[in-house]
């Protein structure tokens, strides 16, 4: 008998999830039909945040340089398009392969270090790539950003318009498909083993788990997904800048994940929505000091909801059920 049959049963889609996705899909079209560019940015950021959740929330790999793979994906898709191939889906696939390959190479270092060394290596990777992209200005556009990106019609039918309907539908469809893939992975025996590695790597080794191979696999997958998110941004905005690789993006994505709640996937989506909407609204009110409010929110969440907003809501629901 399959010893993981219970895990398959546990992984069935809940009614809350069935309700969540149509709401996310329809609500922006209905509520903000003229504001879809923000919605597509949220979908892309949520996908990037999910990629970080795979390594940080599930496998316990702390990274301060995950934007490196986002940027690699963005530049890969952007360069492909700027050199004459603007077909979006194959561009995504190309970006995924390039970013995943970069992730696989980096994973050999990642699995050998922990804690502070891990932070420094991931941070250093981000700085290194920013400087590399900057110094290869003739190729990447340097500080001016990559020029000449032209994204073709999606499936040869839907044009990427100023109003952003195609961009939103495209970003959301990619987010949804990759979310399902990630959900399947984290609720598999492999995902469960990753959580166990996060808790106690020596014990999982003693139980027969090849820790390093598992961590390399999830890191490579995560880099590939981050690359796809970067490619989506490049294709939907038709620009790629050095900022896509930078530390600020890596730090922001970590903040979003901590706000929403790590190790849940939905926490990544919630964190991205809260952060992006808050940034949009707060920056509108006070363009210079909006980070003050984000910082305050982060401190409140970490102090009172250490498992993030979603974790806090889960605890509240559990408390309600007990009463």
């Amino acid at each position, binding site marked *: *008998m*399959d*010893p*993981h049959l*219970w*895990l398959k049963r546990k992984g069935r889609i809940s009614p809350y999830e069935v309700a969540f996705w149509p709401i996310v899909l329809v609500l922006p079209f209905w509520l903000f039909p003229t504001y879809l560019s923000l919605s597509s940015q949220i979908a892309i950021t949520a996908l990037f945040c999910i990629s970080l959740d795979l390594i940080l929330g599930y496998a316990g790999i702390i990274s301060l340089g995950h934007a490196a793979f986002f940027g690699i994906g963005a530049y890969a898709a952007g360069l492909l398009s700027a050199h004459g191939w603007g077909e979006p889906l194959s561009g995504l696939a190309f970006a995924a392969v390039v970013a995943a390959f970069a992730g696989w190479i980096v994973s050999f270092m990642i699995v050998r270090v922990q804690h502070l060394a891990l932070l420094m290596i991931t941070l250093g990777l981000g700085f290194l790539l920013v400087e590399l992209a900057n110094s290869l200005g003739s190729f990447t556009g340097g500080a001016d950003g990559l020029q000449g990106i032209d994204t073709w019609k999606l499936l040869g039918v839907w044009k990427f318009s100023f109003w952003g309907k195609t961009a939103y539908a495209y970003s959301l469809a990619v987010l949804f498909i990759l979310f399902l893939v990630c959900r399947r992975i984290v609720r598999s*025996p492999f995902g*469960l*083993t990753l*959580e*166990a590695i996060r*808790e*106690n790597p*020596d*014990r*999982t*080794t*003693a*139980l*027969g*788990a*090849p*820790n390093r191979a598992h961590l390399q696999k999830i890191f490579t997958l995560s880099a590939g997904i981050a690359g796809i998110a970067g490619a989506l941004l490049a294709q939907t905005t038709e620009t790629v800048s050095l900022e896509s690789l930078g530390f600020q993006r890596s730090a922001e994505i970590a903040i979003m994940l901590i706000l929403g709640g790590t190790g849940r996937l939905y926490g990544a989506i919630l964190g991205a929505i809260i952060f992006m909407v808050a940034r949009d609204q707060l920056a509108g009110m006070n363009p210079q000091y909006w980070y003050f409010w984000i910082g305050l929110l982060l401190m409140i969440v970490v102090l009172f909801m250490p498992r993030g907003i979603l974790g806090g809501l889960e605890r509240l629901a559990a408390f309600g059920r007990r009463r």
Partner: protein
Amino acid sequence: MAEPLLELRDVSAGYGEAVVLEEISLNIMDGAGLALLGRNGVGKSTLIQTIMGFTHLVKGTVHWRGQDITRLKPYQRARAGIGWIPQERDIFPSLSVEENLGVVARPGLWDRAKVFGLFPRLEERRANMGNQLSGGEQQMLAIARTLMTNPSLLLLDEPLEGLAPIVVEELGRAIADMTKQGGMTLVMVEQHAEVALRMTDTAVIIERGRIAHRGRSSELIRDQATLDRFIGLNIGT
């Protein structure tokens, strides 16, 4: 003569530069039980960790079903069929009992229904997190979790340490049931020497990293002089 399940040939091992075990040779036959006895700090747990591949092997070889596994990594040894329940229990604290049992579970005789049959208390607490269990329940979970990997050899490192007498009795019974049901080979390190000797066929006493005595458990349990000399134990018979 039948091939031993596990064989250590002239093994010296330790941590870094420090050699803890010296020239250890022993055989464990399939389905047999071996008690590893000795005072604190003589190298019993180091021997278990050496079998698992977690120590620095200075010399000697380790064989599993006749194959040299000296160079195999710990996870490869576990996959070959060696299960280790450490002294520290090492429960995954933020995984539920059910999830703890599912980590690296492999198909075989032992499945969830069977381990819940052995430890009914775990079934009652299946939804609880690892860090919400008592010491005795954590030990049950540590044993059950290793059983779910369906090992041929079980290395038990002080499974009864620090537990209340009533839990010691319950766990001792469960370990005896488990070895009977699964026809499992057992290596047991235990301060409660009389419990270990009653559950095993042979016994080895370790003194300063070397084997000081070996013999049948049934004979050693009556050999008060040897027990007193090497482990300072007085078993009232």
